[in-house]
């Protein structure tokens, strides 16, 4: 009766771990918490194997589980901690360094300032390689909603990172303009 994880399935689950971790870390902003999330995801997946339809996208299924766990835990924490703002961004806040090089910290902190629904939509579509349709399934919303969230996330990131502010690009803007023109 109990579905047993077969060797291929074990390999498939293991193979999914790096992308699950990347998603969880980007979603939560914390490696420890992300690893707990991934572990809970694997455990839940294993105990719900009977619900997985062979032949469908295993990764999408796992991402759905992880996302649901993240949100239920998030809601729980918000209730427990006196932190009505759910200050994910606050925890993650890094001292803004005015370095000229591309720094992932800057990007991460900008990402952290996005509303959660926009962040996850952008991560699913822009980084994890899911289609808009798959992302919509994972987030249980309409495709148009995902598109709109991804779009708004990009615009917000561009403004946070000054990507769209030509004045801030300095001399380099000439080069960029030339390259783009």
């Amino acid at each position: 009766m109990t579905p047993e994880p077969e060797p291929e399935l074990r390999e498939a689950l293991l193979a999914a771990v790096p992308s699950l971790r990347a998603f969880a870390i980007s979603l939560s902003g914390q490696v420890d918490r992300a690893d707990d999330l991934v572990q809970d995801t694997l455990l839940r997946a294993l105990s719900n194997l009977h619900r997985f339809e062979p032949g469908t996208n295993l990764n999408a299924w796992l991402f759905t589980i992880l996302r649901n766990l993240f949100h239920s835990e998030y809601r729980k924490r918000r209730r427990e901690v006196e932190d009505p703002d759910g200050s994910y961004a606050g925890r993650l806040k890094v001292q803004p360094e005015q370095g000229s090089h591309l720094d992932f910290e800057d990007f991460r902190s900008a990402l952290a300032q996005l509303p959660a629904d926009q962040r996850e939509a952008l991560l699913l579509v822009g980084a994890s390689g899911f289609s808009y349709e798959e992302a919509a399934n994972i987030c249980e919303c309409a495709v148009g909603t995902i598109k709109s969230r991804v779009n708004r996330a990009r615009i917000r990131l561009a403004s946070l990172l000054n990507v769209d502010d030509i004045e801030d690009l300095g001399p380099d803007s000439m080069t960029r303009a030339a390259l783009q023109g």
Partner: protein
Amino acid sequence: MTVDKGNKLARASLDNSSSSQLATDPKLDSGSQKRIGDQLRAMYDELMQQPVPDRFKDLLDQLDKKNGGKEGSQ
């Protein structure tokens, strides 16, 4: 000579949208969009390349072995 100045243009096009673009849902110009996408993927790739922590291998190994007895309660 209204061309060039990629980013300024993009913003301007939000205002006087001579195109059929919906005014309610502005889009980022493709240059900015590409830069955002590149940074996102670069950050993500770095995370993806981290080695898988042993705890996950151990977890799957364990479940592999003791499966069958454990979850039979349903």
